[in-house]
């Protein structure tokens, strides 16, 4: 019996080492090592190859003094605005679809599918869609807007960002909606039945049952949209290549790192993004804590990892 116990202890450690070595190695090589390097790089003026010189906080100052970077920060406000619109629409559609609907699954499927298309394809689809006189203009001309009176959706400054944000809403709306449908479905159906019996209208049911019970996930998504706004990449990359003031933070970072090879500055941009994510995460934690205290949502499992 004793020998068996020792054997078990021994084989326990063998299996632990066998199963955690590779994941830890990968985690270290592709996450923590680059993380450390990135922080170091951000204090240097350097390229990928060749000499580097220590410049202190200069790269961080450049974040706010260089026009292209500062503009891209302001630009993310468009995307945040877009994600608010997106959340509201997703909530509306999710609510509609969570009641009995003819062809409900078809609607759900149609609205969700764009989430599965690759970003480059979406870029092409919408470049085509918004080109002057093409799809969007044609449809608008059907309802009475002459094509000549319509603006250039991708060239006019300001408007082009609205078009790009529209693309992003098109892409993620369905995913948000599915998320919300999942949350709404987890609400006890007896609540609706009881409300129905009490003569509550659908609108009342929405504000008094649905919204309170999914407010955590809605708040989380609002917060998440902040980092999402800074990371918008593929569609603007294909559609406008960041021209005419459409360069998002990510596009500029990519250009700085790989076109002009200002690795130090690009690293500082990445570190800054990381700081924003930290702040957002802390807010998110606080919100969760607050939400768990005030509502009986979720299974309350908390941190599994």
């Amino acid at each position: 019996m004793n020998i068996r116990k020792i054997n078990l202890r021994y084989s326990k450690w063998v299996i632990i080492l066998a199963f955690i070595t590779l994941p830890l190695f990968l985690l270290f090589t592709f996450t923590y090592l680059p993380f450390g390097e990135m922080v170091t790089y951000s204090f240097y003026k350097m390229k990928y190859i060749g000499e580097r010189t220590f410049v202190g906080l200069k790269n961080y100052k450049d974040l706010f003094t260089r026009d292209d970077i500062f503009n891209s920060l302001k630009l993310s406000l468009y995307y945040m605005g877009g994600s608010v619109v997106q959340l509201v629409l997703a909530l509306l559609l999710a609510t509609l679809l969570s009641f009995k609907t003819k062809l409900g699954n078809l609607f759900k499927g149609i609205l969700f599918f764009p989430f599965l298309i690759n970003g480059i394809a979406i870029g092409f689809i919408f470049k085509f869609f918004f080109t002057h006189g093409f799809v969007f203009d044609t449809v608008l001309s059907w309802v009475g807007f002459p094509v000549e009176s319509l603006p250039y959706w991708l060239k006019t400054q300001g408007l082009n960002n609205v078009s790009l944000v529209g693309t992003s809403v098109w892409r993620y709306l369905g995913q948000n909606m599915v998320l919300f449908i999942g949350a709404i479905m987890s609400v006890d159906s007896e609540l609706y039945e009881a409300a129905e019996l009490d003569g509550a209208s659908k609108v009342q049911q929405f504000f008094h049952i649905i919204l309170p019970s999914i407010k955590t996930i809605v708040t989380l998504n609002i917060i998440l949209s902040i980092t999402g706004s800074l990371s918008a990449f593929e569609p603007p990359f294909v559609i406008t290549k960041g021209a005419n003031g459409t360069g998002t933070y990510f596009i500029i970072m990519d250009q700085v790192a790989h076109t002009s090879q200002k690795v130090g500055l690009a690293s500082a941009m990445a570190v800054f993004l990381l700081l924003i994510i930290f702040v957002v995460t802390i807010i998110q934690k606080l919100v969760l804590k607050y939400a768990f205290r005030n509502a009986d949502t979720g299974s309350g499992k908390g941190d599994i990892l």
Partner: protein
Amino acid sequence: MMVTRKVKTASILQIFLKYFILIFFAFWTILPLVSCIITSLKNTEEYQSTSVMVLPKLLYFKNFLEAFTLAGMGRAFLNSFVVLVFVLSGSILISSQLAYILNRFKFPGNTLIRRLFLFATLLPGVAMQVSVYSIMGKLGLINHLYGYIIMMMGTDVISIYIFIQFMENISVSLDESAVIDGASYFKIYWNIILPLLKPATVTSLILKGVSCYNEYYCANLYLQDVKIRTVAISLYTFTGPLGNKYNLICAGVIISMIPAFIVFILCQKQIYSGITSGAVKG
């Protein structure tokens, strides 16, 4: 006020409004895709002479063939397939093994490892490529399919999370009775845990598969050589001098969407549940 109105008219109005909204949004969702399909079926002459929303007179399928060869999509599909097979099998094994250890064994460092992985989710993956790029360079992993595969395997915390969550509902008494029967820990993992994890594996395979197939940024950074391009990169060929030939571009776009579409049709339920369960973490 709603209350004073007759219930019947109100509900008819409600139903009308509901379907109007649904059809309206479904229309705008489908429109870009439909216009793409229409255009992909026109030959160049017809494409240039007709409005984009006019249906093609006769279906011209040659665009698909031309787009397929022009962008080298045959090769690209093969590459994407190889990447998918290795990344998916690799990351499923790695993350289920790690989840098994973290969930079933108490040992000093267990919590630390969980925290390390949890913290890693906060680091913005694509932004980190600034420095991952130089590490990949030093390791000689740039411009090799295996380099990209290794990198893609190493960054999958969501699967680990899904597996741990799932494993909490697999009774430990199964393991214990197997130990009494003299099974080794590896046997327990391989013959008991892994088969029971199947639903979680399917979910994670589909989600990871779709996002891996669609991944562009890193593929473009690390797979510069024409021979090792994946589908997402090959599609980008259409930006250059071909930029105006939308009948070809649309054909290419549709070809690239077919695998995701098939997966979607076959596995809708798992995809939805994957989206919902992956989101709890936020």
